[in-house]
C-alpha cells in the first residue's frame, strides 16, 4: 500500500476490506520509519509489541466480518508528553529518561479504544516548552520539507511524522501554539480544541490553565475524526467539560455560505512576512468566493498577549515542575549528601536551559513583592484578551489569521535569543489564553516551497465551524 497521503478512512477501509492487514500496515510504517526517520528525528520510542497486538486485534475483527471502529487499524503516534502505560515517556527531558508510566493518558486510551495502532512516541521540546523543537533533550527534529529548517514546536515530532508519512495521524499538545505552529511549518492540519473539550488526564503538565491535547493529520476530515474520538467529559480531569460532542465529520458537510469571517488588522500588521501575508490574503479571498462574508474586526489587546502569556505560562510551569525532585520517579543526582542538595542537583542536571529559564521567570513572577506587578497583572490582561474575542464573536462566526509571522526558520537561527523565539508566538498564544479553539490548515507556499498555514479561530466549543471553514480552504488551496 502507498503510505503517502494515506488518510484515516483509506487505511481503515483497506483493513476492513482485507486488502491489507493492520499488522502488515504497521510493519510497513515501521520500515518507513527505520529508513526515513534517522534524517528527521521525529520518533523517540517505538512500541512495536503494543502496536502489533492492537493491529492483530483489528485484523481478527475484520476477518470475522465485523465493522471496525472509526480508527480501526490506523497507525498513529503520540507526542512524548502524554503518558503511555508500560511505554517510556520522557516529555523530551533528561529528567524523565527512564520513566515508564503506570497508566495511560485518556486521549491515547480513547484512540486505542477506537482501534488506532500506536506506533511510538514523538519528539518534542522539553516539557513542550519551545517553538522550534530545538529544546528537546534528545535530538532536534528536521522539517521534512527542508531538512535545514525547524519543524516548529513544541509538537515538532508530531507534525514532522505526519508530513513525512511516517504515521497517518498524531496527537500533539498546544499551550501557546504548539500544535498549530508546527502544523503550519510542516504543511499539515493541526487543531487546538476549546479548553476542556479534550481531557488532559495523563498529559504531563506544563501550564494547566493553558494546556490542550489535539490532533495533527493530513486532512481536515482526519482531524475531525480524531477530535470526535478524543473529545468529551472525562471524570479523571475535573476541567474537562460536560458538553455534548457533535459529530464533527457530519458537520463538515454543512456549507460555509453566509458565514461571517473576521479579519483582525492586528494580525496582519508589522512583523508579518510579505509572502505569508499574501498567502493569507489569497486564502481569505478564496473563502469569500465560496460565499463567506469577510468582516474587518479589531482585537485591540493583541500586542499584550505575548507578555501576558509568558507570565501566566511560566508561573504555572514553575509550580507544575516542582514535582520533579528525584524522589518518586525520574533522574536523581548521584553525588548529593543532603535532601536539599539532591533536589537541586537532580533538577540542575535533569532540566535543560529553556526549562530552567521558564522556572526562573515563573518563580520570579510569583515571588513576594512581584506577584501583583506580574502574575496578577497578566491575569487581568488575560481577561482583556478574552473580552476582545467575545466582542469579536458577537459580529463574526470565526476569525481568519496567519499562524506564524514567518514560514519555517533555519535550525539554530533563534536558539540564542529566547525573546525573539517567544515573539514569534504572537498569533497563537491568544487562543490558548482565551480557551477558544483554533486550527491551522495549509494554504500555500513560499517561493522556497515552505508551507504556510491559515489559522481559523472559533467560539468556545464551536470546533464544527472552524473545521468547516478549514475544509473549504483546503478544497480551494
Amino acid at each position, binding site marked *: 500500500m502507498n503510505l503517502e497521503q494515506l488518510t484515516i478512512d483509506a487505511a481503515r477501509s483497506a483493513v476492513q476490506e482485507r486488502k491489507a492487514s493492520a499488522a502488515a500496515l504497521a510493519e510497513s510504517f515501521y520500515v518507513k520509519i527505520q529508513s526515513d526517520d534517522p534524517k528527521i528525528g521525529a520518533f523517540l520510542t517505538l512500541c512495536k509489541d503494543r502496536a502489533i497486538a492492537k493491529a492483530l486485534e483489528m485484523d481478527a475483527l475484520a476477518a470475522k466480518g465485523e465493522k471496525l471502529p472509526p480508527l480501526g487499524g490506523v497507525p498513529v503516534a503520540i507526542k512524548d508528553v502524554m503518558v503511555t502505560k508500560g511505554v517510556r515517556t520522557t516529555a523530551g527531558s533528561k529528567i524523565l529518561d*527512564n*520513566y*515508564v508510566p*503506570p*497508566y495511560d493518558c485518556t486521549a491515547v486510551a480513547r484512540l486505542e479504544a477506537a482501534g488506532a495502532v500506536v506506533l511510538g512516541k514523538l519528539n518534542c521540546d522539553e516539557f513542550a516548552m519551545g517553538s522550534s523543537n530545538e529544546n528537546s533533550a534528545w535530538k532536534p527534529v528536521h522539517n521534512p520539507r527542508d531538512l535545514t529548517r525547524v519543524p516548529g514546536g513544541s509538537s515538532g515530532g508530531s507534525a514532522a511524522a505526519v508530513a513525512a508519512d511516517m504515521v497517518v495521524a498524531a496527537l500533539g499538545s498546544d499551550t501557546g501554539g504548539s500544535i498549530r505552529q508546527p502544523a503550519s511549518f510542516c504543511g499539515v492540519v493541526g487543531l487546538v480544541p476549546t*479548553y*476542556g473539550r479534550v481531557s488532559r488526564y495523563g498529559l504531563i503538565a506544563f501550564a494547566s*490553565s493553558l494546556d490542550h491535547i489535539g490532533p495533527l493529520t493530513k486532512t481536515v476530515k482526519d482531524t475531525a475524526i480524531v477530535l470526535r474520538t478524543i473529545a468529551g467529559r472525562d471524570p*479523571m480531569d*475535573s*476541567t474537562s*467539560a460536560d*458538553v455534548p460532542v457533535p459529530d464533527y465529520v457530519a458537520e463538515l458537510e454543512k456549507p460555509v455560505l453566509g458565514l461571517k469571517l473576521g479579519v483582525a488588522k492586528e494580525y496582519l500588521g508589522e512583523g508579518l512576512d510579505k509572502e505569508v501575508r499574501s498567502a493569507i490574503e489569497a486564502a481569505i479571498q478564496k473563502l469569500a468566493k465560496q460565499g463567506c462574508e469577510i468582516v474587518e474586526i479589531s482585537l485591540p*489587546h493583541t500586542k*499584550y498577549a505575548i*507578555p*501576558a502569556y*509568558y*507570565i501566566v505560562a511560566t508561573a504555572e510551569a514553575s509550580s507544575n515542575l*516542582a514535582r520533579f*525532585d*528525584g*524522589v*518518586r*520517579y*525520574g*533522574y*536523581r543526582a548521584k553525588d*548529593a549528601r*543532603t*535532601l536539599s*542538595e*539532591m*533536589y*537541586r542537583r537532580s*533538577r*540542575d542536571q535533569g532540566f535543560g*536551559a529553556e526549562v*530552567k*529559564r521558564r522556572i*526562573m*521567570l515563573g518563580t*520570579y513572577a510569583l*515571588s513576594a513583592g512581584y506577584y501583583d506587578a*506580574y502574575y*496578577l*497583572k*497578566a*491575569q*487581568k*490582561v488575560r*481577561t*482583556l484578551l*478574552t473580552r476582545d474575542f467575545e466582542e469579536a464573536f458577537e459580529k463574526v462566526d470565526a476569525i481568519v489569521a496567519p499562524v506564524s509571522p514567518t514560514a519555517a526558520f533555519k535550525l539554530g537561527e533563534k536558539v540564542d535569543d*529566547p*525573546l525573539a523565539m517567544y*515573539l514569534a508566538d504572537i498569533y497563537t498564544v491568544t487562543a490558548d489564553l*482565551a*480557551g477558544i479553539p483554533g486550527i491551522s490548515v495549509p494554504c500555500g507556499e513560499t517561493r522556497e516551497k515552505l508551507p504556510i498555514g491559515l489559522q481559523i479561530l472559533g467560539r*468556545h466549543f464551536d470546533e464544527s465551524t472552524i473545521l468547516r471553514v478549514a475544509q473549504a480552504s483546503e478544497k480551494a488551496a
Partner: protein
Amino acid sequence: MKVTAKDVAYVADLGNLELTEEERTRMVRDLNSILGHIDTLNELDTTNVPPMAQVSDRYGVDQSKQGSERFAYASREDVLEGLRKSLRHDLALENAPDSDGTFFKVPKVIER
C-alpha cells in the same frame, strides 16, 4: 537592570535550582531582556479588570456562584476508592530512583 545577580540567586533558591556561574550570568541577561518586554503590560490600566485564572471562570460556570461553588461543575460524590483503585504499591515504587520496597529512600533529612 531590573534583575540582579542577587535576585537570580534568591529565585534559584526558591525554585530549587543551583545553576552554575555561567548559567547565572546568562539568566541575569535573559530575564532582564524578557521582563523588559513584559513591562509593556504597564501601558494598560487594569484597575477595574477582574483577573482570569481559568477559562472555566468565564465559560461553563454559573457567574452568580461564588468561591468554591463556582467549581461545583467539577465535583462528584465522595466515595471510597474514588474513580479508580489506587495505584498498586509495587507499581508506585517501580519508577523510584531508590526504594526499600516499602518506602521511597532519600538522603538523610535531619543531620545529627
